[in-house]
């Protein structure tokens, strides 16, 4: 099997798996006052320190959550609520047109349920948000903005955003900026303090840790209203019994991924570049989407003109090759990607796209398998696609 969908989830690192199993054998609620509880608490706090150190944050800034979607929701809604409650005129959210649904839908929810006004920052043809656009947006009405949320790197097309520049613009206007760095951590250099962002989302299962555990790194001067109320864990911001084993494994994975990030990125990017070159050779009409330079090392995202992405996926899946069309709704029906549409692609090109993402277990043989299967798949998918076109 060729697993080319690491951006969806990547295999757990052995060290993380071992840490998980070892910790899961221990008993103890990290909030309990006895010895077993203290032991669990110690593991959690050591993990917090590891995560903080790896991300350039302070331990007190790390809030463990149930994963990326929760962290994004907590940041977007929580900062909005907190900011608006102290300054009622701040009812605006600034976001980008290429966010993951965990941010997109949280912002939409604020608009629908909380009366928030939303400014969606457009992107250029490579999927980049520009600091100029943010500056223009804030120049108009910065005193009405409660929160800015814009991703570090695109889960679909792999474009890496100029986050530090965006954060600098936000800081000029005193508006907190949250960034979803789920795809970035372990792939590119991510330093919370140096980036200047106020909040950052990271999750375990994209970097070799378990699914269902992540963190929101939140600067100490940024107030946030909780989503979950209860036992008051995590600075009263996120109640719920701490998943000690998950947190330990997440921290080990994150620390390992960050420590090896440079050599990982060099190796994976070389393999990715080979994949891109060979896909173009095999299918000359294929179009690489996203920024050719500032992109995630493992990401290769193409449009295959005349094909439908879901047909290609089915055909490659039958050959044991796992990849992604990039977006799906709950019924499993592929919708044209909002990211590609925002980048100026038409609906046909958006539907024709396929994402291959490499990771720490990727091998040249997997790329070989893709290249062996791709021409026939494209040929067949094009035949199927022409049925739609000639209808």
């Amino acid at each position, binding site marked *: 099997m060729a697993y080319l969908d690491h951006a969806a989830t990547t295999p757990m690192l052995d060290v993380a798996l071992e840490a998980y199993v070892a910790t899961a054998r221990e008993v103890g609620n990290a909030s309990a006052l006895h010895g077993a509880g203290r032991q669990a608490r110690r593991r959690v706090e050591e993990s917090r320190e590891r995560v903080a150190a790896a991300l350039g944050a302070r331990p007190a800034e790390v809030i463990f959550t149930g994963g990326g979607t929760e962290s994004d929701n907590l940041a977007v809604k929580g900062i909005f609520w907190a900011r608006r409650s102290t300054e009622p005129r701040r009812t605006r959210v600034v976001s980008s047109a290429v966010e993951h649904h965990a941010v997109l839908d949280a912002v939409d929810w604020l608009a629908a349920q909380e009366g928030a006004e939303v400014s969606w920052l457009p992107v250029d043809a490579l999927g980049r948000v520009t600091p100029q656009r943010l500056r223009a947006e804030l120049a108009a009405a910065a005193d009405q903005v409660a929160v800015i949320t814009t991703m570090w790197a695109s889960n679909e097309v792999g474009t890496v955003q100029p986050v530090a520049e965006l954060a600098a613009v936000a800081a000029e206007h005193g508006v907190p900026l949250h960034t979803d760095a789920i795809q970035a951590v372990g792939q590119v250099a991510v330093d919370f303090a140096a980036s200047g962002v106020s909040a950052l989302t990271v999750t375990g299962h994209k970097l070799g840790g378990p699914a269902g555990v992540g963190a929101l790194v939140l600067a100490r001067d940024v107030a946030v209203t909780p989503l979950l109320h209860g036992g008051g864990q995590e600075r009263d911001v996120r109640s719920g019994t701490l998943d000690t084993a998950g947190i330990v494994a997440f921290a080990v994975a994150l620390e390992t991924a960050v420590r090896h990030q440079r050599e990982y990125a060099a190796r994976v990017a070389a393999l990715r570049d080979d994949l891109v070159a060979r896909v173009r050779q095999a299918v000359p009409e294929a179009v690489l989407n996203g920024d050719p330079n500032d992109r995630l090392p493992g990401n290769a995202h193409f449009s295959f003109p005349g094909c439908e992405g*879901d*047909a290609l996926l*089915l055909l490659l899946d039958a050959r044991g090759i796992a990849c992604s069309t990039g977006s799906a709704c709950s*019924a*499993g*029906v592929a919708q044209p990607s909002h990211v590609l549409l925002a980048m100026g692609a038409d609906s046909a090109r958006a539907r024709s796209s396929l994402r291959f993402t490499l990771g720490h277990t990727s091998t040249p043989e997997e790329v070989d398998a893709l290249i062996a299967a791709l021409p026939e798949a494209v040929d067949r998918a094009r035949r199927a696609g022409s049925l739609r076109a000639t209808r």
Partner: protein
Amino acid sequence: MVTLVRAPPRCPTVVKKVVGVRVLAAMSGGVDSAVAAARAAEAGHDVTGVHLALARNPQTYRTGARGCCTLEDSRDARRAADVLGIPFYVWDMAERFQADVVDDFVAEYAAGRTPNPCLRCNEKIKFAAVLDRAVALGFDAVVTGHHARLGADGLLRRSVDLAKDQSYVLGVLTREQLSRSMFPLGDSTKTQVRAEATRRGLAVADKPDSHDICFVADGDTRGFLAQRLGATPGDVVDAGTGEVVGQHTGAYAYTVGQRRGLHLDRPAVDGRPRYVLSITPKTNTVTVGPAEALAVSQVQAERPVWIGGPRPAAPVECEVQLRAHGNVVPATVAVTGDGLRAELHQPVRGVAAGQAIVAYRPDPAGDIVLGSATIAA
């Protein structure tokens, strides 16, 4: 029936026995299509499951026995595929379904005809758009859970379960379409299919049968049409006297043979119930009359498809069915130009334009579909 024609292997030393073909199982989320997929897999075919997303905005849950378009149905289909261990995908056919089935349904009613959307869905979606896409993608056939028999002889026959027989809604398929179709349930009764689903551990074993029109969520066809066609008030006229006996809010909402919901202002002279005899969209008139006036002994039909043999050169003695679950009557069917005419040996009531006439040749091994056409008058 699927013809097992494959290119000979290039290298004779690596002859791999082909036990089956690549087939696409259309899985609605119901028990029939799940068992059909299971049987195809068990027969040695390489089966891939596909759920067709037909609704633009699918409902989350089924309400009653309606629909095959909800997210719950999609999940049920996925679970069945999991249990069978076959790949599973959702194909978005909503746009095609809207154009070819829903819009057609509305247009047919607006034209005073009574369409059968299940038949149209088979003709245009399942055994056309889906089949064509499947073939383009390298599949050899489409498998469905329809209750009908399709043997090695290429003939389409009624299911052994006459109460569940669906040969009528498959009668529109061409030989070409049938040659790439598989109906593994034709030799079983519904009871047997449910029992088999239980034995196979399929959770849909007890799922209620679907009824009615899947895209009319609340079952209110008249309301559905009124929403799309608007109110167009007109007269209800008595066929005998020519008098206006009532008003309607849209002739499209009526079907030939309908008795209920006429809301006539005055009773018939003879006091007997009246039925819809015809709908005239041009004058927006609904004509009503007594039951006996409904009786028809000759049917004209258009766009015939002959699947049980060549286009008959001489009139054929056979049996015809004029609507889904309708009675079967003996008839003489003759080709007329590009259509056909059926002389019914006993009169039939409630024959509606837009429905299909399906001709069968009685056969001890299951009545054979000879052909079908769309009733014109």
